[in-house]
């Protein structure tokens, strides 16, 4: 029973922690962010299974986390607000040759991050970008200017 309670608490605590850290871990994950995700995951698993490392206990924990994940995904489709809480909303970072400073600063993103996304689209500089949008999964979408 404790494993199920610990798994539920661990899942929501991990969700909250990763959600407030920043949106980047989901998308453009750097080595620096890998450290956070693996370390937090490792610590949570210790309290979830505790001393009981039996197959039964670990299978139960995996099932509980799977059910929670399924329930959260289902709720996201039913409630737009819940989806925004869990995943956030897309944010426009660059629009009509102007930075949206509030969003850039708030999301701790700089021009290098935008340019990295632009290069994957074959763009050579920022002047070729019409819109840069931070997506819910942490990636940056680039919409180029019409030629």
């Amino acid at each position: 029973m404790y494993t199920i309670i610990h798994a539920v608490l661990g899942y929501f605590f991990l969700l909250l922690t990763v959600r407030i850290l920043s949106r980047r871990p989901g998308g453009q994950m750097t080595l620096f962010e890998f450290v956070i995700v693996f370390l937090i995951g490792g610590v949570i698993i210790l309290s979830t299974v505790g001393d009981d490392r039996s197959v039964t206990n670990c299978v139960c924990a995996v099932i509980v986390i799977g059910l929670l994940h399924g329930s959260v995904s289902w709720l996201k489709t039913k409630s737009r607000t819940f989806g925004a809480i869990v995943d956030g909303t897309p944010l426009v970072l660059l629009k009509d040759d102007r930075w949206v400073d509030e969003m850039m600063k708030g999301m701790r993103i700089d021009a290098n991050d935008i340019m990295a996304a632009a290069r994957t689209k074959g763009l050579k500089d920022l002047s070729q970008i019409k819109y840069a949008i931070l997506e819910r999964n942490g990636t940056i979408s680039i919409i180029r200017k019409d030629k």
Partner: protein
Amino acid sequence: MAVPIRKSPVEDTVPKVNGEVAVGEDPEFQRKWWKFESAVFIIFTLLVLLDLAGVFGRGPLAKAHKSTPDGVMNVTYERIERTGTPSVLKVEFGNNAIQGSEIQLWANENLVTKLGNKQVAPQPAKSVIGDDGIHYTFDATKQPATAVFSLQPSAPGLYDLTLRVSASSELHFKILVMP
């Protein structure tokens, strides 16, 4: 007969930026979220500071000390413990505790059942159950005489612990076990 796949019309419900790119941005929600993030960061920082201080055990505030007025017994223990984490409860006996080359100590049953006492050093010459607790008898010569109880609580809760050497020398205290 195969059931036809249900299809519904596509509705352009995602709000657009500049009337041309469907993004679904919600800056107002984002501003609220940043406020929530700041509050969570403050709470997390407070939790870490409280943890360093020992409010959740294993720190300076968790350590405690109690003595009987007659000095027969001094107990050093952790008033806040953690489930499954080993700790030590140390009992120092004064001269008056030694009667006929032995010390008799009674502890209520929470010492074993709730606080998970598994080991006593030195090993008592005799331990007898009864009277809602355990009577330990230690062979002793003279001061200083110390008995160390190793604890490892198995469940969270607030537990009463009573230690008694004689009718007049009794210590009663509470130990909080964190999850």
